[in-house]
């Protein structure tokens, strides 16, 4: 079972899908290689967070995902 990428909020629009499977292991550079154009830019933004299996990473560059893990890309929440 590969790594599942989950796109939330406007990142799902940019990705064109809610989820995507990629082959693990997956580090930060490997993730960026999967994300093209505006989606890659959005992922790089400071306020976009990454969660692995429901744990939000303090430093997303420290991403280390194995096959079977779920990696979520979280844009800023909407508020209001």
């Amino acid at each position: 079972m590969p790594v599942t990428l989950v796109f939330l909020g406007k990142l799902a629009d940019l990705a064109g899908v809610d989820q995507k499977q990629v082959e693990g292991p997956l580090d930060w550079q490997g993730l960026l290689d999967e994300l093209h154009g505006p989606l890659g830019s959005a992922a790089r933004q400071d306020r976009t967070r990454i969660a692995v299996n429901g744990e939000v990473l303090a430093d997303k560059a420290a991403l280390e995902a194995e096959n079977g893990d779920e990696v979520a890309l979280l844009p800023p929440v909407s508020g209001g």
Partner: protein
Amino acid sequence: MFRRVELVRGHWDPNDAVGDFASQVPAAGGIATFVGKVRPDGDVEALELTHYEKLTLPGMEKLADEVAKRWQLEGLLILHRVGEMFPGEPIVCVSAAAKHRRAAIEAVDFAMDHLKSNSWFWKREKRAGVWAWIEPREQDHSDLARWKD
């Protein structure tokens, strides 16, 4: 302490939920409540709240833990709608029951500020048939700053 924290997936009546809640906290001297609705603001046709299963409800539970730690409550109710909804429909309902008035009111105030600006919800609105994502608001961050120790 009685506690109910849930995501609501369809049409609901917060007033019924508060009535049920009140019956669960007979020892409370007061119950404070806030109900937020989709504002019928001119041209908004619909609103959609996206959540993330692995974070949103667990985050609401953590918020309830913190509220219960900061104030002495008899009960706490946190309900948040997800999915697509229409102007006038309820989005959120927070109710706190306590022996004393100030605890109940402050607990609701705190929970609302944190739900609104620090919870895992992404919101988009449909206007003239076109969906657009809502960006964070500065006001929410200043609301939140009120609670920093």
